């Protein structure tokens, strides 16, 4: 096109034009999966300051660099003790196939970390295959069952999700099979909507009472997490702590979803990078940093991302989209099938559609059978090990014998935006834009 001298509009680019054409043809907003695709300031914009003379590095592969983490020991008598600080985020049976859920449980258990249910209840497969299982407690309460609540190793009260803070979930009819519908008490094949607010409490004062009820039902044994979509993480983290949370989970705007309006995914919430310092500041001011643990999710892909999140103050991270890719999502070997769906490996985001060639975001028995839960679990375990080893490599280089000893002073930023958001200096300077002017 360029050779013809044609000029593409930066404002009305081809994706925008296609969006307008699609809206005009259908009259309904676009619903898709994945997370935000726009470029935002990111962990990629941070670098570590490895040790040399002023600080000493640890010997790689020889000197110990621990990775374990205890989650939820503030009020619960049975906190989780995980071997690595990388956990699997909540993804529902319904959004994912039973095989995919089983594979996540297998992979997480193999390396000693936790996996999480989603909107729609707990399946026996995932409970059976998950050594540490976090049970999500959501506004819809689909499949919510006190027996499962007591079987859970932790309870995660979900207020919001990074992909859609303030919005409810949805699951389209293609995926509401008999089993999914049965678990959610819904008619088969309908387009399911989920509420955006919990049905029996609103606000932190009532949440405190709700947490009290969940603790009474579980006899104060089970840790209680509160998950928020990052929009005002300073206030929301503080309020979660005041309401009695053992663990706060902050999901940045790049966090994934199975089905959400595209306008929501791309335009609501703040980047993960900007959310962490705000949440940490709230915890520090309340005197509970490291006592109420912080789990961060939304765009964790590499061991460097893990280490950067932890250096900024997270106790652990959670992965969703990356775990699905590890299982086989967007695999080039299904290129022809992606093409038939109007997509391509690396671009496929129609998780709402139920026709996932990789057999992960589907309820179609034939497609789902493509994912072997044992092999999938092995791939996930491999990936989790790599994330951990990568994070350890960086931590050792920074002279740390435990990942938790990474700190913001180990980081510098490459861009002014990342420097301001992460509150670490621009590389080669001592300048943090906005510092000293009151961060909040």
């Amino acid at each position, binding site marked *: 096109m360029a050779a013809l001298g044609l000029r593409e509009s930066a404002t009305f680019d081809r994706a925008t034009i296609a969006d307008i054409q699609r809206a005009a043809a259908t009259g309904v907003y676009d619903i898709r999966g994945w997370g935000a695709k726009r470029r935002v300031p990111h962990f990629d914009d941070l670098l570590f300051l490895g040790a040399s003379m002023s600080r000493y590095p640890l010997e790689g592969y020889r000197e110990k660099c621990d990775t374990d983490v205890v989650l939820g020991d503030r009020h619960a008598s049975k906190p989780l003790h995980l071997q690595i600080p990388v956990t699997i985020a909540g993804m529902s049976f319904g959004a994912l196939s039973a095989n995919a859920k089983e594979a996540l449980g297998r992979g997480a258990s193999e390396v000693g970390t936790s996996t999480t249910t989603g909107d729609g209840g707990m399946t026996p497969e995932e409970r059976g295959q998950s050594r540490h299982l976090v049970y999500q407690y959501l506004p819809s309460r689909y499949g919510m069952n006190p027996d499962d609540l007591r079987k859970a190793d932790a309870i995660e009260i979900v207020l919001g999700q990074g992909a859609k803070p303030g919005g409810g979930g949805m699951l389209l009819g293609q995926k509401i099979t008999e089993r999914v519908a049965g678990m959610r008490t819904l008619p088969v094949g309908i387009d399911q909507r989920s509420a955006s*607010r919990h049905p029996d409490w*609103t*606000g*932190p*004062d*009532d949440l*405190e*009472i709700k947490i009290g009820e969940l603790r009474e039902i579980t006899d104060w044994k089970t840790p209680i997490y509160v998950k928020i979509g990052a929009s*005002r993480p300073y*206030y929301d983290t503080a*309020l979660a702590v*005041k309401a009695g949370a053992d663990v706060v989970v902050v999901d940045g705007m790049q966090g994934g979803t199975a089905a959400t309006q595209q306008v929501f995914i791309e335009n609501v919430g703040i980047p993960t990078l900007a959310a962490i310092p705000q949440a940490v500041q709230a915890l520090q001011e309340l005197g509970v940093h490291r006592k109420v643990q912080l789990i961060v999710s939304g765009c964790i892909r590499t061991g460097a991302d893990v280490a950067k999140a932890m250096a900024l103050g997270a106790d652990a991270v959670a992965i969703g989209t990356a775990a699905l890719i590890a299982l086989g999502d967007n695999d080039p070997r299904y290129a022809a099938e992606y093409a038939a769906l109007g997509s391509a490996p690396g671009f496929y985001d129609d998780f709402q559609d139920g026709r996932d060639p990789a057999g992960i975001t589907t309820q179609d028995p034939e497609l789902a059978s493509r994912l072997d839960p044992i092999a999938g679990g092995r791939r996930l375990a491999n990936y989790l090990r790599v994330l951990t080893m990568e994070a350890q490599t960086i931590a050792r280089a920074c002279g740390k014998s435990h990942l938790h000893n990474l700190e913001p002073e180990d980081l510098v930023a490459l861009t002014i935006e990342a420097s301001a958001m992460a509150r670490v200096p621009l590389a080669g300077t001592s300048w943090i834009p906005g510092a000293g002017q009151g961060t909040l």
Partner: protein
Amino acid sequence: MCGIAALQLRNPSLHPRMGSLLSSMLCQIVDRGPDSAGLAVYDTPGLVSDGTSTVSLLGKHHGMEIDGILTSLNDMLSPDARSTVKIIGDTTLISAAVPTALLVKAVGETLPASTIIGRGEHVAVMKGVGHPMDIAAHHGLESMAGSQGLSHTRMATESAVTASGSHPFSVADDLCLVHNGSFSNHATVRRNLEREGVVFDSDNDTEVGARYIASRLQQGDTLEEALINLGKVLDGFYTLVVTTADSMAVVRDPIACKPAILAETEDYVAMASEYRALAALPGIERARIFEPEPGKVYTWSL
């Protein structure tokens, strides 16, 4: 995000027990807001008296000795005004036998750095940061008599945990407002009021509600009309209690998520965030207990 307890005593024989009853109610709503608290009491002997105006100031230190304050007030108001200064807990009460607006002006000029948290001929307002029961004890609520009382415990959402951010907000003579919930367009309403010349003391969303009502009352609205108009302008979630010299009003937003429960007998009207705050009131077993309907304004007069 907060707890509210309010009490209007219709039977004068209960007036001596106002403070102890309000204190027992407050005790049950502490969990809803452990950050800070505020109290408003009406017609409490020793704090306010007929024929005089009283201004409540946040804190007890204002950079000037009491004698200096009195000298300044006497100069401005004349000694006939019989100005007095009292320290109650962390609150300073200044009274004088002059119209309230005049006293507010004189106090403002005498102590320009102070924050006025209450004004009128009937009300005294007290606020503090910390455990609500400590604040109540510090001010001696238990032994206060009175015709009405309003208490609030706060879990700050987006504004600072400071005494000046505590409720009630009292921004016009004998008017107090407390709020549970959060307004979602308060910044816009604040800007509009500021354009009309209204001055704010805090960054709190509730103060916007209080200033809005004061502005409507000044324009001639009844209390009920002012609350109906508030519902048209302020968006979000709220349970509000408003008190004036002789009345009390309760309103919830049309979605009505934030709790409110009322108990009414021949002797009193009581409002609280939760029933447990009402449980110890006298004759509660015979009270009419009900939750306010969404969007409906309820008013009671002494």
